[in-house]
């Protein structure tokens, strides 16, 4: 008891939550009921178990069925959901999470501390298939304090922990459903969210109906029908003809036309995802920093955004997306300057007779192959012989994850989209030396002890202002070292009928139609 009292004394109760008066409230909304909202999407779900999912769109669906502990709103503010608040210990190693009382899963099972512990324990269990486990791997242990309180013990201080709890992977799953269906919960999802899965016709549609026992404000849309329409042009045609109300990710080339149509509204917030050309820092011609900087000057990123991506992206002006906490626009920019690029190559004694090997996936990111071809052309324009190879994603990813001794990478296109609005997953997740393959996906094999120290400090520091300064320092180091050709930040494009009002669209490529109204 005494120990506990001392422990409690040690705990600094910071009401991080962060976040305005909405903190202790459930999601709310109002307006005339919408009977059905038809949403056109490009892919079918493989699993509706939130812990097995990596695809943002399907995570989005899981959020509607399960609900999350916290919710990071489009302004990066944390709002309460199934958890109402949290406290962090002074040393940053213990988080106490207070859960909302009286919440039940859609099958009637209480959504309490035991259920949350079971969920998180499953996510941390290495035997379970949890592709995004790395995001919560900092959690050492989950303890039940009482029916509505859990305590998380961390392996090391991790400032963005609370934001991490807004991830779909942490969404509580009904323990009764796990017992009843086992791994079958992937097809029979039971959560505490605003919707319940009604029907899943493989390859055709996923239908959800309102959870009448939802703890929050009654959802305004009675039924959500996700129609699987793989072709972008068909999806757009169906929106124009009124066969669907929402078109997920229409073709960038048609965004301007959609915007011009008064019957359609297009939202396109800046995404967390950055697209870049990785440059191998440990092997080949790109080992030389001057060469890497030269390649950055050689590419006209503005032209790529305008001509290839139809303004559905903006050039990178810092090492992460501008919407992340911790972003800084860099004072020095690598504006298109082929002369300067040639000059740097000359200074680096670059051998113009050798061929630089480039790789690109096809169909993974927006116009990925076309962007890579443009970069190839820009490099050729300054006299660099560049050969580009195209791969499908499974082949491509296998090549990226090889250790440096086996790596054949020189220049390669990749995208990286942090799951929460914090620069940590970008700056640590790509550039810290511990994420070099095969341990992580820092495929540029960037390693700089000064940078490592700077980025590690951002994790330890709990004061947001000081963290911002530390992020700035880390950003400046990596920006100068150029492990990437800093290409662009994508925008998340979603088009819907202008009759639909109140759609919530976030920068993490998610949208929430729960409380929309229709004219």
């Amino acid at each position, binding site marked *: 008891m005494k120990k506990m009292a001392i422990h409690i004394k040690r705990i600094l109760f910071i009401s991080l939550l962060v976040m305005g008066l909405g903190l202790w409230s459930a999601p709310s909304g109002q307006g005339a009921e919408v009977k059905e909202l038809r949403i056109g999407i490009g*892919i*079918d779900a*493989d*699993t509706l178990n939130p812990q097995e999912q*990596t695809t943002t769109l399907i995570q989005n669906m899981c959020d509607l069925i399960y609900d999350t502990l916290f919710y990071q709103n489009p302004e990066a503010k944390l709002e309460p959901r199934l958890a109402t608040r949290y406290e962090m210990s002074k040393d940053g190693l213990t988080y106490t999470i207070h859960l909302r009382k009286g919440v039940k899963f859609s099958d009637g099972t209480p959504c309490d501390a035991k259920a949350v512990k079971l969920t998180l324990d499953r996510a941390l269990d*290495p*035997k379970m*298939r949890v*592709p*995004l*486990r*790395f995001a919560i791997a900092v959690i050492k242990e989950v303890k039940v304090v009482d029916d509505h309180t859990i305590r998380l013990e961390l392996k090391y201080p991790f400032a963005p922990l609370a934001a991490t709890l807004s991830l779909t992977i942490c969404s509580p799953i009904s323990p009764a459903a796990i017992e009843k269906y086992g*791994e079958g919960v*992937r*097809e029979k999802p039971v959560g505490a969210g605003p919707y319940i899965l009604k029907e899943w*016709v*493989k*390859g*055709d*549609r996923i239908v959800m109906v309102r959870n009448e026992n939802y703890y929050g404000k009654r959802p305004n849309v009675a039924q959500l029908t996700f*129609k*699987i*329409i*793989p*072709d972008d*042009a*068909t*999806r757009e*045609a*169906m929106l*124009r*003809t009124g*066969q669907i109300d929402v078109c997920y990710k229409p073709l960038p080339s048609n965004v301007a036309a959609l915007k011009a149509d008064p019957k359609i509204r297009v939202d396109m917030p800046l995404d967390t995802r950055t697209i870049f050309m990785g440059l191998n820092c440990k092997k080949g011609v790109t080992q030389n920093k001057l060469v890497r900087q030269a390649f950055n000057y050689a590419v006209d990123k503005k032209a790529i955004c305008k001509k290839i991506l139809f303004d559905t992206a903006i050039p990178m002006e810092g090492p992460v997306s501008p919407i992340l906490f911790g972003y800084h626009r860099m004072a020095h920019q690598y504006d298109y300057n082929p002369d300067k690029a040639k000059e740097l190559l000359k200074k680096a004694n670059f051998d113009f007779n050798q061929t630089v090997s480039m790789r690109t996936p096809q169909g993974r990111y927006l116009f990925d192959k076309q962007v890579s071809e443009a970069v190839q052309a820009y490099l050729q324009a300054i006299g660099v012989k560049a050969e580009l190879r195209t*791969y*499908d*994603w*499974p*082949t491509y*990813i*296998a090549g*990226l*994850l090889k250790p440096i001794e086996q790596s054949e990478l020189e220049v390669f296109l990749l995208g990286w989209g942090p799951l929460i609005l914090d620069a940590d997953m970008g700056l640590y*997740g790509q550039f810290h030396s511990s994420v070099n393959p*095969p*341990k*992580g*996906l820092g495929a540029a094999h960037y390693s700089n002890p000064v940078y490592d120290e700077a980025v590690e400090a951002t994790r330890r520091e709990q004061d947001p202002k000081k963290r911002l300064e530390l992020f700035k320092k880390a950003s400046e180091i990596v920006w100068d070292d150029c492990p990437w050709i800093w290409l662009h930040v994508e925008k998340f494009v979603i088009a819907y009928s202008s009759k639909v009002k109140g759609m919530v669209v976030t920068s993490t490529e998610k949208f929430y139609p729960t409380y929309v109204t229709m004219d």
Partner: protein
Amino acid sequence: MLSCSRLVAPKIDWNMLRYVIKRLISTLPVLIGISFLLFFMLRMLPGDPAQVLAGQMATPEEVQNIRHQLGLDRPIFTQYALFLGRLVRFDLGRSARTQNPVIEEVWARLPNTILLAVAAIILACLFGIPAGILSAVRPYTWIDYLVTSMALFGISMPVFWLGLMLVVLFSVILQWLPAGGTGTWKHVILPSITLAAFVVAFIARMTRASMMEALAQDYTTTARSKGLKESVVVVKHALKNALIPIITVVGLQFGLLLGGAVLTETVFAWPGLGRLIVDSILARDYPVIQGAILIFGLLYILVNLMVDLVYAFVDPRIRYD
């Protein structure tokens, strides 16, 4: 008093039955051959299915765990033997992605694929055969040139483009038909027309060639000299004899339609097997690819058998002894 007609047992053609059974038995080595080629060719593809499932950030241990769960860490011949063992019990395994039995995944989409293929082949026959006959009966006239040009157009036109054009015209501009999806008969029209366009062209060209040959035969001249009406000569004498190659083409095209509708399925959001296979290839979901292609193989063999049997009905000289 109730009158009852005399029930006559249908006459069984034992030769035919024996032939069918023999053919069905012979499908087994063919299917084993397909499974062998498929199994080992898939494993030659670069890319690790365990890595795809584990995600980009998985640790090597996590990837190894999944590899073990999928049985991919065993020697390749052991994997194949286990696969064959399951196959004997009609078990196609479970999808690596969804963990559902492959048979369920395939079964959920197979009826859609068959519906689309049947609708397309019916459309293709309805238009292709008369067009070919017309073309053969009036050779080197404007009708013949029109049919030949249309056939060339149909063969050359990209399915994807035609599908999108039909969507623009009938869905966006005229708003007569849905642009995609399933559910009503209206949903079948545009994808079946798209799919049929290519096949119509093939059938029309084959019908024309076959009919022209038949019309030049002595028996046609004899029929005409007997004073039969031209329509009787064309339909009853020439067409009947010209049908064999047409049936062959229709059968082969039907088999291809079952497996080759990926683009049409994509354009019209048609939940068929083609897309399932493509998605599974992209995810290296070996069990689904194997299961779905084996079922295609089986269907293709059955369609060929049906075609062979139809020959006998069309041409009494063909006997299966």
